[in-house]
């Protein structure tokens, strides 16, 4: 088993992860093109992300933001280049191993929330713990704690169709963080929200990332959203261009 | 196998060994159409060696002692019964069961401890089962007993019975004319003269031949006794069963004695004959005969208790009968509806076991010194229930 060294189960990752000496994520010369589009979407992209770092990636529609995210998540495979996550080269893993890596170490936040309508809020948040086969007794308390941190502990027994968009995205954030991943991938998490709610959500995300020490990549075309990150890169022409960190920039 | 062939009540008479119990209503009907046994008819040979189909019941009964090459003693029994049914009188079918034939066949082997036994019942006819009228020739499929005149006119019988687990293949030769029992062959079975049979015996038959047990054929020789008896009305309704003995005595004489018991188990009737070595025959009446049980044996299969050792008084003489082995019970319920004990016995001098009380659970110990007077067969019937075959 090539990935035997990886802490693949929740129990194995129980000891709090110490900051690894290497970067959390290291991408070199990433290329990806689709048969449908004649030109490559990503052309030799490089990226390094430190543990606990919160990175925003901006870009035009079709610039390849989602492609980048899918490649990092292991949902898709690059034509060329290396993606090393937690010291493991994704290229050396088959789909199952990548999926397990994702299951243990990554969290997802979507524009369309994708909260399952037939599960309660608590069950939705506990879903990653279910999939990781966390001991039964721990699942509900951990999910509830996570919900409370996200400010929606009171909604635990409600069903999604009774909730607003902001509340749904809070659930999504709780679900992304409940199993204490090392990396959270957020794809336009505020795209379906009004400005005020978006701001609250971004604040929550930032707070929670810092609280848990998880690294994150936020993909957005909103400058406001990007501004909440520690670092901002712009994806254009298939590569990432560095921008000044905007952490100190004033927010509206 | 619960074969309901048992209890041939309609054919009535019996099917039980030797004597039959013509006691029920059917038997009476049957007797009405069968020829009655009357005194004064003298037996005609060789005609009377053959079958008498006009009488209700008839049997040929051969019992005797055999010795194999190592001189181990064995007992054997070969019986053919003929029963008149009086049914289907008009039926032209070749299968019409006017006469039934039954055969019992047994071997007493002390090494085995109980009988090898087999039995058959068939309707007479089609040449497959038949009792000839001219001379003794009776067979059921491949079981058969046949007589012919031997040297000097004495009887010579051949018997061949391939049974289920054993085969008897024997010849018996007589050295004298048959003994006519009772009054010249008219043998009364109760106080009423209508309870009677025609009855002769051929004692002291020399046996030669072979037996097959477990697939092994062994030559044997010995001495046997043949009874041929036919009747229409048999056992008196008050009678329960009988004890019968036939002994080939070492002094050359031959003794037959029977006692018929009443329903309470007490004495009802008796009779017997003794032919001495010179050929003179003496007949005994009820007063001359007494059977006294000395030891009982209870069958573990049927639970029936038989007096397997008895003291027999015949006129002035006394004999103590000791069985070759205790378990010589024949289960003929499937063909004759009866259980009986038919066993090889030694006759010892009268006083030998005189002290043993009747009802003692054990066989009396035979003093090795007990003087053996002869050998023969003891038959005990009606010990399970009265031989009323309903």
């Amino acid at each position, binding site marked *: 088993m090539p990935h035997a060294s990886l802490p693949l189960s929740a129990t194995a990752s129980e000891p709090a992860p110490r900051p690894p000496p290497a970067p959390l994520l290291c991408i070199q010369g990433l290329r990806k093109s689709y048969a449908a589009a004649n030109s490559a979407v990503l052309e030799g992209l490089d990226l390094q992300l430190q543990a606990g770092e919160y990175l925003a990636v901006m870009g035009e529609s079709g610039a390849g933001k*989602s492609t980048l995210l899918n490649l990092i*998540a292991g*949902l*898709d495979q690059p034509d060329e280049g290396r993606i090393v996550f937690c010291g493991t080269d994704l290229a050396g893993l088959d*789909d*199952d191993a990548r*999926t397990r890596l*994702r*299951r*243990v170490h*990554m969290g*997802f936040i*979507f*524009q*369309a929330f*994708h909260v*399952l309508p*037939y*599960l309660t809020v608590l*069950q939705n948040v*506990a*879903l*990653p*713990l*279910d*999939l*990781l*086969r966390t001991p*039964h007794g721990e*699942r*509900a308390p951990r999910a509830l704690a996570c919900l409370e941190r996200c400010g929606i502990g009171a909604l635990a027994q409600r069903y999604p169709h009774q909730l607003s968009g902001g509340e749904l995205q809070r659930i999504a954030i709780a679900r992304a963080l409940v199993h204490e991943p090392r990396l959270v991938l957020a*794809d336009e998490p505020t*795209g*379906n929200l009004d400005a005020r709610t978006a701001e609250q959500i971004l604040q929550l995300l930032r707070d929670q990332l810092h609280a848990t020490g998880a690294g994150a990549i936020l993909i957005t075309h909103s400058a406001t959203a990007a501004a909440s990150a520690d670092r901002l890169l712009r994806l254009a022409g298939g590569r990432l261009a560095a921008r000044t960190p905007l952490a100190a920039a004033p927010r509206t | *196998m*619960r*074969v*309901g*062939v*048992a*209890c*041939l*009540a*309609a*054919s009535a008479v019996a099917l039980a060994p030797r004597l039959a119990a013509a006691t029920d209503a059917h038997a009476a009907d049957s007797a009405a159409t069968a020829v009655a046994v009357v005194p004064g008819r003298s037996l005609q040979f060789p005609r009377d060696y053959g079958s008498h189909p006009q009488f209700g019941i008839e049997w040929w009964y051969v019992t005797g002692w055999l010795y194999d090459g190592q001189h181990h003693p064995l007992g054997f029994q070969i019986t053919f019964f003929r029963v008149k*049914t009086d*049914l*289907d009188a008009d*039926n*032209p*079918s*070749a*299968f*019409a*069961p006017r006469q039934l034939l039954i055969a019992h066949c047994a071997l007493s082997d002390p090494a085995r401890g109980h009988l090898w036994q087999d039995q058959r019942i*068939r*309707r007479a006819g*089609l040449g*497959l089962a038949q009792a000839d009228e001219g001379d003794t020739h009776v067979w059921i*499929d491949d079981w058969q007993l046949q007589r012919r005149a031997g040297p000097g006119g004495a009887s010579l019988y051949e018997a061949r019975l391939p049974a289920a687990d054993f085969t008897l293949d024997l010849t018996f030769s007589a050295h004298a004319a048959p003994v006519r029992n009772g009054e010249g062959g008219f043998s009364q079975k109760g106080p009423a003269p209508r309870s009677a049979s025609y009855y002769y015996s051929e004692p002291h038959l020399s046996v030669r031949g072979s037996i097959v047990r477990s697939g092994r054929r062994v030559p044997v020789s010995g001495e046997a006794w043949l009874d041929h008896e036919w009747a229409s009305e048999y056992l008196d309704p008050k009678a329960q069963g009988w004890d019968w003995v036939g002994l080939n005595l070492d002094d050359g004489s031959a003794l037959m004695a029977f006692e018929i018991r009443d329903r309470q188990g007490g004495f009802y009737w008796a009779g017997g004959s003794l032919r001495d070595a010179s050929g003179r025959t003496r007949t005994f009446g009820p007063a001359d005969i007494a059977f006294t049980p000395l030891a009982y044996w209870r069958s573990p299969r049927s639970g029936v208790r038989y007096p397997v050792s008895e003291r027999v008084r015949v006129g002035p003489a006394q004999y103590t009968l000791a069985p070759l082995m205790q378990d010589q019970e024949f289960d003929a319920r499937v063909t004759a509806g009866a259980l009986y004990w038919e066993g090889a016995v030694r006759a010892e001098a009268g006083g030998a076991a005189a002290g043993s009380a009747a009802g003692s659970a054990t066989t009396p110990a035979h003093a090795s010194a007990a003087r053996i007077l002869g050998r023969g067969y003891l038959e005990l019937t009606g010990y399970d229930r009265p031989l009323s075959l309903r």
Partner: protein
Amino acid sequence: MTRAAQPAGGTAWVSWRLLIRMQLREHPVRMLVTLLAIALGVALGAAVYLINADALAEFDRATRRVIGDADLIVRGPASGFDERLFVALARDPAVAEASPVLDLQVALSSPPRTPSTQGAAQARGGSFGDEPLQILGLDPFRAATLQPALIGALAADVTHLFDHNAIVLSDAAAEELRLRPGDSLPVAVGSETRVLQVIDVLPTDAYPDALGIMDIASAQWMLGRLGRLDRIDLRLRPGVDLARFRARLLARLPAGVVASTPRIENGRAATATRAYRVNLNMLALVALLTGAFLVFATQSLSVLRRRVTLGLLRALGVTRAELRHALLGEGAAIGLIGSLLGVLLGAALATLVLAYLGADLGNRQLAAIGASFGVHPLAMLGFALIGTLCAAVGAWLPACEAARRAPAAALKAGDAEPLIARLPTTAPGLVLLAAGALLAWVPPVYGMPLAGYGSVGCLLIGAVLLVPRLTHSVMQALPSTGRVVVDASVAQLRGSAGSATVSLAAVIVSFSLMVAMAIMVHSFRDSFDLWLVKLLPADVSLRAAPGSDSVRLSASEQQRIAALPQVARTEFQHQQQLYLSADEPAVTLIAQDITAGSAADGLPLLERATGPVPPGARSAWISESLHDRHAGEPGGWIELPLAGRRERFFVAGVWRDYLHPGGAIVISRADYIASTGDRTATGAQVWQRPGADATAVDAAIRAQLASPGAVQVLSDSQLRERSLAAFDRAFLVTYALEAVAVLIGLAGISMAASATALARRGQFGMLRHLGLLRRQVLGMLACEGILTSVLAVASGLALGALLSLVLVYVINRESFHWSIDLSVPWSELAALSVTLIGAAAITALWSGRAAMGSDVVRAVREDW
């Protein structure tokens, strides 16, 4: 998530639970329908199996009681054989025991019955009047060894059986005839009535069917069989080689007398009914197959429908294999529950059928009585497994498809219902069609048309694979109407031709099978009707106690009937069973008025000898089944055992026969009389003089009969009606299966409609936003429904016609060994098609209405 803990395989299990929960919550009805489809298929299969198993078990039990522990059974023709054969066999040194048996079907002579018993006899399915009673004449002493169970059940005293008229009845017979010990039982023998005396009734467990036992001697005498036997059961001595002895015996037996083993005897019964059983089972499996297609359709649609959930699960870390297992498990779960339900339903159905129709389902070939019901846990488990497997197979492709799909796309906001854009290639479909066509020519395996069934399977799957291409081409070819509703429907269907396969598959499969079966049954019924007309040419039919061995029309009776003033013409015939070979079932010999010249008038001839009849030769016409079994060729010779001699007959032709599964041979009655001297007849055709009154003729004929109660006098038209009624009863099961196919087909259509309607709620909302009237949207849906179903019906009709050819010319021919002429039930098919199209339109409308509920406009914003 506080449900019971699961031990292992956690992730797939969690996903499975999630998916099932989602299905149950979102599409309970769809799941239920799928479940019911599987349940129905399994139920039918299980019911048919149970009924057949019961019938066979009864038959086997009866055979075993009657044959007992015999090593060999020697049997003769219906007229029996000389009893001296028994003597010879009983004396054979190799034979340990020989038991002579008379085995007769004895007609009851105007029995002492009440109207209720008559009703009971008819309810038992006797299509032609009262059934004869089987009477065994035995020698209880010899039978005791060979039939211990039967003899042992006789009350203790067998000597009572020796009374010349004594009979012991089995419990079933006593009950059926309402007789008790002491009652008398008049039977018809020859042209007389004999009265038997019931002396005893066997306990219920002794023998399952109606049976009488007599002593062999009284049976010979009372039943007019002096000197004759029908059967001898043999037990051989230990160490005798059975096969060698049988060969030796066969060489020595008189002509027409055969020796078989109990295995062969049982095998004959099984063979006679095997084709029928296999057919029913296969039809049940077809229902199951339709169920599997339905699972396929449901799962495919639900995979499309749940793409977001599936994508989310993938993103959250569920591997492909785990997802596939979860989806497969989902299908299997539906299958398992459906199958268990089906097994229960099947058992209930079988009990019901056995209680009301009897185990033979109206089919005389399976003439077993009694409705005791065995439990067959293993077989039932098998059916549950088959059902589950079918469902899993149905779920397999969609599961793989779902696992293969990239999850990222589904998770993008605003993702629309994806269309299966790529049309599958036509090659596999064409290959399967070709294979199906080829398989139809492959000969049967072990007498069963397995290749024929294979052909049906290939044709079905091949056709289904070609549906998308067909849909696409048809929709492409449709001209634009300029009407937005119609054009939108066509465009939708053209675009979704790939997914059309999915929704259409179940419909086409079930409809085409429905069509094929309708054509086959109709063809059979038509041919049967024509055949009856040919075989019943006169006005009145006389049948001497049908099926009995004891009643005959004597020569004088024949003369008196022929001389009646009302009668214009008579044709008497003599039928009896005989054995051509030891291993084959009994053949029916029919001696009737026929000549080489007139054969075509009296017989439905299929083939004739090409050459002339050789001078001096006697002619025989053999039935199709005998021809199939190579018993003879037209122009060749056939040997018939007549009166214990082998007689050579010229095979002058082959005729169609629907009555005798074992085969039948027609010869001239003059030849029969010349060979056997037997002038009696078992039946007649009577033509009345013009103007004669039918009831008067009937009465006049009856007046000539010595035992009128034992002879059936029926008008030919009555007989024809009864026969057709019997036919329809026999095909009751087929009709039931058809009804199920219709149900499943309709369920498929409505599910497909509702699924697409639901899936396109967003689209409807958008159209409503654009200004389409609610009515117009519904119209569009109805239009789509009609287009889809017309397509389904058209392909179903074409495919069904193709399948019916295989059914009629391959499967039927090879199963039953009789041919039928193709005849299409146009009106029936038209009615079916219209019903289906109408139902499709209605369900499409109905589901559209449901889909366009209050929140349809809101559906534009979110697509789920």
